[in-house]
């Protein structure tokens, strides 16, 4: 039986599963109705679905499904150890689970988890328990409020975890705010990798730590190429993060934003969804567009066909944009879900009526 494409949409009021049948995308299932599904992730090694629930009252919870959502089980929520402090006199407690990433095909059962207030966790048993990665937590910069600090949230948070497909001990994380950190020994030691980034909001914009990457991804076919949508523009590294080039659109359109998608084969192609400035945060001229570059960020082209060009207040968060092959999808804060099946040249709206969209992934049944 041929597989069916699925699009999993984590929203502020539940997990919504779209499927493609006879060329049309329709809603197949809704899970966790009324609950904020802030994180949706599939461990592609085992086809396990993970849902992070950000309850307003009851704290963060983590659920998984081994049967594509037919049944769900909860795992014990990752915990900051007793007497752990974010800053002096500020006990560390889990504020939000931001991102999950499997640890590589040669580490079965290995899962990384990025959280607020800045703790990275690791599980070696498929998420049945998680341990704080002490080496990062105890990094001198992490303990300095001038270097790790909240941006839009009260505390710093790890929102991107990138594994080198050639070497699963080689991992990058991105933190808002702190920047990019790299380990080559599976988390035993960490180094900042922020050379070339700009932190325009700091007295020293070229500080080693204190940057605000909004989203970071690498090109799987050429893993030395890493992209980031940053608070202060768009940056690309071609030397495995040792340095970053500012590839912000010189015409001023592709600049500020949160969302990023990268071509899995072509290291020169990436997409962003711009907004104007950190203080306004709406689409330029209230006209929603996706911007694509085909030449590593030298030039950016706006893709608008099928997107609202009048009075659009859609903003797209960092985990609400994804791609698989020629298909791209993004969801907005105003509950609009858009999909393109030709690399962004044309877009269709799958729904105008969803709650705020926080997380999107493609998979298949």
């Amino acid at each position, binding site marked *: 039986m041929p597989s069916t494409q699925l699009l999993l949409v984590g929203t502020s009021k539940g997990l919504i599963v779209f499927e493609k049948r006879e060329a049309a995308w329709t809603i197949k299932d809704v899970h966790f109705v009324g609950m904020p599904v802030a994180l949706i992730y599939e461990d592609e090694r085992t086809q396990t679905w993970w849902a992070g629930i950000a309850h307003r009252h009851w704290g963060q919870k983590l659920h998984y499904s081994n049967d594509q959502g037919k049944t769900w089980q909860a795992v014990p929520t990752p915990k900051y150890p*007793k007497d752990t402090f974010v800053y002096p006199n500020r006990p560390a407690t889990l504020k939000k689970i931001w991102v999950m990433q499997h640890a590589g095909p040669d580490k079965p059962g290995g899962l990384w988890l990025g959280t607020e207030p800045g703790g990275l966790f690791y599980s070696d048993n498929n998420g049945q328990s998680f341990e704080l990665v002490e080496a990062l937590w105890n990094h001198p910069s992490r303990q300095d409020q001038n270097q790790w600090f909240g941006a839009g949230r009260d505390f710093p948070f790890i929102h991107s975890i990138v594994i080198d497909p050639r070497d699963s001990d080689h991992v990058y994380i991105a933190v808002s705010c702190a920047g990019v950190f790299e380990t080559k020994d599976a988390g035993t030691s960490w180094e900042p990798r922020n050379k070339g980034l700009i932190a325009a909001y700091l007295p020293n914009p070229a500080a080693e730590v204190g940057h605000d990457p909004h989203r970071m991804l690498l090109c799987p076919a050429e893993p030395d190429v890493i992209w980031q949508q940053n608070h202060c523009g768009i940056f690309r590294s071609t030397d495995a993060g040792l340095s970053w080039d500012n590839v912000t659109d010189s015409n001023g359109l592709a600049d500020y934003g949160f969302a990023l998608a990268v071509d899995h084969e072509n290291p020169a192609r990436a997409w962003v969804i711009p907004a104007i400035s950190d203080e306004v945060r709406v689409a330029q001229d209230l006209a929603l567009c996706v911007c694509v570059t085909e030449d590593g960020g030298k030039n950016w082209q706006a893709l608008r066909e099928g997107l609202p060009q009048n009075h659009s207040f859609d903003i797209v968060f960092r985990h609400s944009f994804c791609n698989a092959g020629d298909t791209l999808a993004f969801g907005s804060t105003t509950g609009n879900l858009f999909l393109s099946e030709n690399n962004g040249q044309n877009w269709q709206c799958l729904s105008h009526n969803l709650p705020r969209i926080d997380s999107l992934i493609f998979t298949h049944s």
Partner: protein
Amino acid sequence: MQTIKCTGALRRFFPNLKDEAVRGSTVAEAIQQFESHYPGISDYLLDEQGALRKHVNIFVGGELIQDRVHLQDPLQDSSEILIFQALSGG
């Protein structure tokens, strides 16, 4: 002996939830006993450092507890402990 009464909102996660008799000298001890009736429920009420979650309220004898960090408010025999979610939502 005290009685814990919980908001019905928690029945979504603990379907068999009902009023429970517990015995403790502090709110923390009462919650610990409540956990033995409903394993995992303290994670819904308290953070990992043992403090009451920001949007959860506990009343003892009709009064909001004072110590949200260590839950050391004393209990009397026959105290009624009410656990509610705060009115925050959307």
